[in-house]
């Protein structure tokens, strides 16, 4: 690989890394024809992990980091002095194919700074995806970032080539968006999300084999945590609304991360990364565990989630009258609320108790650890008696502080 291309790759990968989404999941099972390349499995594969612990699944790059927008939170805003570069369409195609052949990646995640106009930029991105599919017979994963200000017919085209589309909301409220991202407007973001959501739903309902698929892996979005004053409860309410209204596959929460050339409009220090983690846990709770957003928020204080313990445990500690729950009798909804029992553990318990009566040891074999579960359940040979009501239960269950590591 020549030095000029390597330089572009360095700049344009660095410029793209603040997008948290890297998933290659959600695509239908698919494989290339005999002369093509690539497959998707539905679950996605992480091909490497960097020292930040995040997965590398897709070649996540910008087509260019030249940008006419001036969003305060973004390293590529026009008023930043960051080093700039621009890929040619063919260079992105070649990098994707050569990386894919060596099994480095599941596919491409392409975003871009806005050059000339939203339409022009979107057309260039679509061209990359179309060349991969048509000229290279590429059946791997493609995620395209949609530019909400682009003409609607371009969004229709993007969905024909991409597995997933996404528009980043970035800031959860209209006021923040106005203050930090003057060229963006929330009306065009919601309009484009609505258009994509509608088309994704229609395409999924389509019975005919011949009908062309539209973004079969759905759409996702990202919100930045800790750049503005929005609290966790409002953040989660925004997410819940997005999942409902636009059939989103995922909302990504990205803790605001200090960037080189930061704008003075932003806080200098990042929020604790744990906050991002707690939001993901809460997100899971309302999507898969039957919790309502305000129930989750009630586990914390003042609209912020508890940073020390996970939101399910926090809720349980404040609702001790709902426990203990009998693993041999309780319905699925009640079991899903037990701290330490995941969806899979609950399903295993329900299947097993049809044929056997479960003791504490039996529960231990289907879940990840008894310590957190024990105070909240009843088993054939186990009652927590006073344990559920102990005043120091929180201290006993909260993770012990670990010594900070030096490197």
């Amino acid at each position: 690989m020549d030095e000029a291309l390597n330089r572009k790759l360095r700049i344009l990968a660095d410029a793209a890394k603040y997008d948290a989404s890297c998933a290659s999941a959600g695509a239908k099972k698919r494989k290339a024809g005999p002369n093509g390349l690539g497959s998707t499995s539905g679950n996605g594969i992480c091909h490497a992990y960097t020292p930040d612990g995040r997965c590398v699944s897709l070649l996540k790059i910008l087509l260019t980091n030249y940008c006419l927008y001036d969003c305060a939170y973004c390293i590529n805003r026009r008023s930043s002095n960051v080093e700039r570069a621009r890929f040619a369409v063919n260079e992105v195609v070649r990098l994707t194919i050569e990386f894919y052949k060596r099994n480095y990646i599941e596919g491409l995640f392409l975003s871009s700074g806005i050059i000339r106009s939203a339409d022009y930029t979107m057309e260039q991105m679509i061209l990359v995806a179309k060349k991969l599919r048509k000229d290279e017979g590429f059946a791997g994963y493609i995620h395209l970032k949609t530019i909400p200000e682009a003409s609607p017919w371009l969004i229709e085209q993007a969905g024909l080539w991409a597995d997933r589309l996404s528009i980043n909301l970035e800031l959860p409220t209209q006021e923040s968006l106005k203050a930090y991202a003057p060229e963006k407007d929330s009306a065009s973001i919601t309009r484009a999300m609505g258009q994509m959501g509608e088309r994704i739903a229609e395409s999924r309902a389509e019975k005919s084999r011949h009908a062309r698929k539209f973004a079969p892996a759905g759409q996702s979005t990202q919100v930045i945590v800790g750049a503005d004053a929005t609290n966790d409860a409002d953040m989660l309410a925004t997410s819940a609304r997005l999942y409902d209204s636009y059939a989103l596959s995922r909302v990504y929460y990205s803790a605001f991360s200090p960037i080189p050339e930061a704008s003075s409009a932003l806080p200098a220090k990042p929020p604790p990364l744990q906050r991002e983690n707690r939001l993901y846990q809460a997100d899971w709770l309302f999507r898969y565990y039957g919790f309502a957003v305000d129930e989750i928020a009630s586990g914390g204080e003042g609209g912020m989630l508890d940073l020390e313990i996970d939101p399910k445990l926090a809720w349980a500690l404040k609702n001790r009258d709902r426990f203990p729950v009998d693993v041999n009798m309780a319905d699925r909804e009640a079991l899903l609320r037990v701290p330490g029992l995941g969806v899979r553990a609950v399903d295993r318990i329900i299947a097993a108790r049809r044929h056997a009566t479960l003791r504490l040891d039996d529960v231990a074999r289907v879940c990840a650890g008894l310590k957190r579960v024990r105070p909240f359940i009843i088993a054939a040979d186990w009652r927590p008696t006073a344990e559920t009501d102990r005043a120091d239960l929180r201290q006993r269950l909260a993770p012990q502080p670990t010594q900070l590591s030096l490197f």
Partner: protein
Amino acid sequence: MDPTAHQHIQLNGGADLQGFRQALRILSWSNIPNHQINWSANTAPDLFGGGQLPSSYGAAGKPIILPRAVADLIRLVVCHSDPEKYALLYELVWRMRRPKNPETHLHEVASDKLVAKLTAMAKSVRRDLHKMHAFVRFREVNDPEIGPRFVAWFEPDHFIIEETAQFFVDRFPSIDWAILTPKGSLWWDKSELAIGPPGTRADAPEFDAFEIGWRTYYESTFNPARTNLNQMRQHMPKKYWRNLPETQAIPQLVHAAASRVDRMIEQEAAIPVKRNPAKAVAAMAEQGPASLAELNQIIAKADPFVEGSARAVLGEGPIHPAIAFVGEQPGDQEDLQGRPFVGPAGQLFDRALEQAGIDRTKAYITNAVKHFKFVQRGKRRIHQSPTAGEIKHYRWWLQKELDFVQPRLVVALGASAAHALEGKALTIRDHRGVHTFPGEGQAGFITVHPSSLLRQPTPDDREREYAAFVRDLACIRDLIA
């Protein structure tokens, strides 16, 4: 087979699924309890011989029926490196099928010790498979005889190479590749898969021209402000690192991370040095077509949203007309000639227009869907109705087109056109006649598509429907008069 005697079963090394399945059938039909069986396997995996039991076991037993979940569990656990696997699997099958007190649903009791152990073994194999899919790294070599070939060296924990082969075949059908492991090798020549003997690291190439780029990517996509080594090690355990070229960058990345973050936080944003693209920012808003001709260029250039012809049939007629007619989509003739309403339905439409006293050349005529959607049957191209999603794909263009054309009255010919103009499905039967379309309250009219007249079952029906259509057109003529 004597059900009371102790049995010794010798299977091949590695993952001998075939041998185990055969033994399972014979032992299970003979009702031999698990504690009477002594399982052993050859030390070296034998990837060439099929599992063969001594002839004294008699002919292979007939198949036994097991729940799908158990069959899947066996397939995975047989790959495990623990030689105990066969004894544990047989114990499960025995307990599920023994003549006295069979535990028919044992596999569903995840809390049972044996089931928990087998589930954990299957999980370990599944993880190994997943890591192999993820962490195989091919390097390109130029073989003077076959051209480029992609070769990888990988060290799996379990005997998974046969189980994983299909994944790589599906993914890389059009390239020559080989995966070498200490437990056997896979070879693909673009048409056949071969399973070969174990390889060594020295057999695999040491260099690949794209690894520089891959390492650049790995380094650049790392965010030093989020360093989290435990999480990295949890997902990418150190035992894999020596075969992953990118991991050479880790020590340096970790070492520099803290100082990079400090610098970012300390460094104030500098005033932009030279870029102030005020003109470009102002020009950014002027996107999208400025005229009907420009829009038509965009449509003509774009890929079709339907399976069929790639030729876009554009609207035709004067700007600011009294009437714009919107049909469904071009048909065979329209696609060949590149003009709307020129096929059999178009000719019928012309006749009806003339009878109603409307001059076609003074009206604007277009379609909701701009491409001919069809399936090929022999030499014929059979028209296919557009789906709701397809109509909506084209809807933005139609809206923009009518914005430029600005007709006084828009006439939807048929349900697809009405759907496109309304934004949702409308039945002709309920909405035929004068209609206001959304947007700025576009005055409109809904009637049938002329092709529906051609599909009437009897000449009488056809006559009646044609007359009704002409009456609609006459009504339209009066509306704009």
